[in-house]
């Protein structure tokens, strides 16, 4: 097992290196990070801009910038003025030594930027994902054990409907009904955006609509998935055998069917979990939620390469980590699987 995990990590490393290089090349091609200064009140002069450029290493060829990003430049000397009069040692330690670089925009470490936004995204994503999974399991199993009944048909139809619904439609509708119209009708309206004034109660009130929208969108796909994998298992011979032995319906469903139907579900969860960290770009935009999705868009719009790279690499690493975790969890659920 340990050997297997080590092998998976070793296999993933070259992939991560290649990905980081390609992403670095792409994010660097987005535009001039110094362009943000053109709008600032104290606009730097051309020579000041050159100096900033040299300090940040932006005057270097892309490949050299990538090496600096990866291993740092504290073993190099930087000629800040360009004429040899002010030579300073480099300060970057590189990603491999845990330094993700400094944001071009805020001059804070890129990791600090992520630390500021990650909690907001997680307070939105963890509750909505948990609710989604619990509801999906309940509805999916219920609907699969009553295939082609009226309730099952209604559930299937509704999940199709919500599965096809773009998130902004349901988000704008809920805002319009519970935010706009409720206040017009003098009913207690829900706040339209933001995270509230800092108290837990207010935060929960602000979370109601975004969490509802995220659950409504995600739920449909999971219900469909659980229903179809449950149906497949319920058609198996061992389920018929369990029935014919006289086991109770709930016993068969929970112990024999659900445990087997859970395997593909674990794969799906393992694929989806890392992306929860990316936040929900559109939902966060609509509800003015200061999460990771907004952070990515903000740094994207200002060509803030270190922050973008930090987010992207965090996601890539998490994808690898969760793939390995999925394999480990698999062995618990299915004793036939051995590595």
């Amino acid at each position, binding site marked *: 097992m340990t050997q297997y995990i080590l092998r998976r990590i070793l296999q993933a490393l070259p992939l991560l290196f290649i990905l980081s290089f390609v992403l670095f090349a792409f994010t660097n091609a*987005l535009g001039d990070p110094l362009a943000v200064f053109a709008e600032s009140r104290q606009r730097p002069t051309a020579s000041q801009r050159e100096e900033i450029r040299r300090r940040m290493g932006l005057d270097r060829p892309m490949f050299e910038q990538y090496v600096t990003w990866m291993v740092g430049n504290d073993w190099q000397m930087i000629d800040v003025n360009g004429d040899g009069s002010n030579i300073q040692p480099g300060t970057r330690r590189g990603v491999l030594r845990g330094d993700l670089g400094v944001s071009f925009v805020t001059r804070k470490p890129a990791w600090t930027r992520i630390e500021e936004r990650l909690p907001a995204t997680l307070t939105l994503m963890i509750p909505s994902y948990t609710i989604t999974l619990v509801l999906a399991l309940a509805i999916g199993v219920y609907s699969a054990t009553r295939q082609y009944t009226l309730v099952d048909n209604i559930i299937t139809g509704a999940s199709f409907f919500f599965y*096809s619904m773009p998130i902004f439609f349901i988000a704008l509708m809920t805002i319009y009904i519970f935010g706009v119209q409720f206040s017009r009708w003098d009913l207690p309206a829900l706040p339209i955006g933001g995270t509230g004034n800092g108290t837990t109660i207010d935060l929960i009130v602000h979370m109601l609509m975004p969490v509802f929208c995220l659950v409504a969108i995600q739920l449909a796909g999971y219900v469909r998935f659980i229903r179809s994998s449950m149906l497949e298992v319920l058609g198996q011979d061992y389920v*018929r055998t369990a029935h014919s032995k006289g086991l109770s319906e709930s016993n068969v469903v929970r112990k024999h069917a659900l445990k087997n139907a859970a395997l593909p579900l674990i794969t799906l969860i393992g694929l989806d979990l890392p992306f929860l960290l990316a936040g929900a*770009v*559109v939902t966060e935009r609509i509800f003015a939620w200061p999460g990771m999705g907004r952070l990515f868009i903000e740094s994207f719009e200002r060509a803030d390469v270190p922050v973008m790279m930090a987010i992207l690499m965090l996601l890539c690493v998490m994808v690898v980590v969760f793939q390995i975790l999925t394999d480990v969890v698999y062995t618990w659920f299915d004793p036939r699987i051995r590595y």
Partner: protein
Amino acid sequence: MATVKNVQAAQPVPKLQNYEKGTSNLSRSLARLRRHRMALVGAALLVFVFGFVIVGSILIPVRASIYNEPARALQYPSGDLPFGTDVIGRDLLARTVYGGQVSLFVGVTAVIVQMIVGTLIGLIGGYMGGAVDSLLMRLAEAMLSIPQLFLALIALRIFSDPTQFPDFTLFGRTYSSTMIVIVFVIGLTSWMRVARIVRSVVLSVKEQEYITSARSIGAGNLRIIFRHVLPNCLAPIIVSATLGVASAILLEAYLGFLGLGVRAPTPTWGNIMGEANSYIGLWYYWFFPALFIMLTTLGINFLGDGLRDAFDPRSLR
């Protein structure tokens, strides 16, 4: 009672009906599709959406979609302007029609790009095997480990430099160059699943006897791929292409909604909604484009699900 119903194997296998037009796989699948109620509903929805856009484009001149009159800004729907007007007084009905043209065009063409790339990569990977295969599959894996929206945003910014790709005029109408760029961006960031599906079909087909016999009579690689392997992949390709149109339209709408998709003057359902995001209180501003996006994706998902059932020989219901 319920337990007996669940035992599928106990049900008698329904007899194949006699079909009028031949009994090829395709005609049998089409006959199954015609009896699939959900698929018919989906097709009807799509006919309605495409009909709305086509008939609208014939009845309403293009001018109406870009003509602005600030004096009539943000008007409530009325007899003259059934969908109301937007913030600079443009007719929202005309914009929904012409935005629909662009959204549907982007959705369909992006899927064509996606299918060509995905099928080629899947065919090459599955057929060649070895280093080529593992390289291509690693590439797919790498691209799947980044959210598609992030990838599309980055690619869109790099390739939509207006100085490099100027707006173009076609049949007397000016389009933003981002419209073409977005087709390729969506297509090239979503081929991975198709490639995997095609590859898995190729892997199972290539061990069959008829491939060996084709090779033994001297058929070349290209002939084997296009004559014997590709036709076997058609069903899964058609199904994922259908469903792919829905996700392409949605991705375009998300990009447009974020204000980073197709740029003005070209309207799309997504960027109309992006403009409307500041006017959530005026329901008619965002409701109609959102409704049409939903009807389209709903129709496509119904139809795609029906196609999947129709092509799957195990689902003889």
